[in-house]
């Protein structure tokens, strides 16, 4: 098997089947690349379909006022800096998700809520699958760094929906959170409404700063890189497969490829000519 196997043999086999290999590479990679590009296009389309409308944001800010006892100094500032984290922790519980889910589904239909909310990167959730877990994509709360301020934010494609969700969040703070934290008081700082374009909404950092490792950027499904990836990977894959097949053919079906192959039986090569094609009329 390996007596007549070398680079020259592989190259000779490739030269013999070069047109077949090229056609297969072009054909298969064209089909696979086309499929990839169509899928990328569909994903991009679905992302931009949802993100076409302006995002309505309703936000509210609270100041966390620590209750300093008599005799306590301001030296416990490290402890006071952690108090806003306790308020934020309440909003990260399942209890909060359930609280908002129960009240918002009473006021609006599931299908309406799903249609007005972007659940991230073009994911379409059917109205049956809207769960309390999805509330995390609607409400965001964060502590402004090195301050005692908490910022709450609700976003959707419907202004009224955003405001109603914000109202529910405020009710939650007043009824469930404020009573339970005895060493601080929440003071309402103000509320505002905004309307952001899709590009502006994509650039906003909605989450808590400590959790903002995955900053939401504009949907990047249809970038040049992803398209090139979709084209190059099939080409490389099919080329590699073709090379493997050629190597196997060269290994198991050896051919005469050089002068030294004739010498095994002491047959001299008296001349080498280019493979000629048939000519009519007595010409060479």
């Amino acid at each position: 098997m390996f007596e007549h196997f070398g680079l020259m043999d592989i190259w000779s086999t490739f030269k013999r089947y070069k047109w077949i290999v090229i056609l297969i590479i072009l054909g298969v990679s064209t089909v696979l690349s086309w499929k990839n590009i169509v899928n990328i296009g569909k994903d991009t389309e679905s992302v931009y379909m949802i993100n076409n409308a302006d995002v309505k944001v309703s936000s509210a800010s609270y100041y966390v006022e620590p209750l300093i006892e008599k005799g306590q100094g301001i030296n416990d500032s490290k402890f006071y800096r952690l108090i806003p984290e306790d308020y934020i922790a309440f909003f990260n519980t399942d209890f909060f998700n359930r609280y908002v889910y129960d009240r918002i589904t009473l006021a609006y239909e599931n299908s309406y809520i799903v249609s007005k909310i972007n659940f991230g990167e073009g994911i379409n959730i059917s109205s049956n699958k809207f769960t309390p877990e999805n509330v995390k994509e609607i409400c965001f709360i964060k502590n402004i760094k090195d301050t005692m301020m908490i910022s709450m934010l609700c976003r959707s494609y419907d202004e009224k929906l955003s405001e109603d969700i914000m109202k529910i969040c405020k009710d939650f703070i007043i009824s469930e959170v404020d009573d339970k934290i005895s060493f601080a008081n929440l003071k309402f700082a103000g509320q505002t409404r905004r309307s952001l374009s899709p590009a502006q909404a994509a650039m906003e950092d909605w989450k808590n700063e400590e959790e903002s490792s995955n900053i939401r950027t504009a949907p990047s499904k249809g970038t040049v890189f992803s398209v090139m990836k979709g084209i190059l990977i099939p080409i490389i894959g099919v080329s590699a497969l073709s090379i493997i097949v050629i190597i196997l053919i060269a290994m198991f079906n050896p051919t005469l490829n050089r002068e030294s192959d004739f010498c095994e039986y002491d047959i001299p090569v008296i001349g080498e000519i280019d493979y000629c094609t048939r000519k009519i009329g007595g010409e060479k």
Partner: protein
Amino acid sequence: MVGFYKRYIARKQERRKQGYKYISNAIIKMCEEDNISPIGITSSIDKSTQKYDICRNICIEICENGRNVVLINADMRFNQSKNIKSYHEGFREISLVDFKVSELRCILKEEKDKGDIIIVNIPPVIVLADALEYAKVCENILLIERYSYSKYKDYEKTILLLKRSEVVISGAIACI
């Protein structure tokens, strides 16, 4: 770009001509110095060698060297001789009618007296059984093999068959 292609074609033709010249000189040497005639040309590949065209081109080259040459076509697979016109003086082509060994022997007997170089186009030995009989009639055999197409197994088989029949193999012509 066109000029580059033309130069490439011209170089290829020049190389081919050089190859044929070299082969024809070797055959002339075999015939005149070693007194070998006829010379059979066969192959181990069934097709894709253009064996007949190579035989014709060798004969034309021998003719251009001032020798007379006879090409006897014993390959019954392709009936090529009907449409070919020969523009070269001193080059004759004979095709077998019944494709029998006795017929070939008769033709060879007649042609040997004329003193021309005789080349016999024999079909591949491993494809047709009669080819071995034709090869036995010839004093020497040349093999035409094509790089990347001639399988090693077929080549070995051909040589074994010829050697067992006590046929002398003078050399090989390689097609690139």
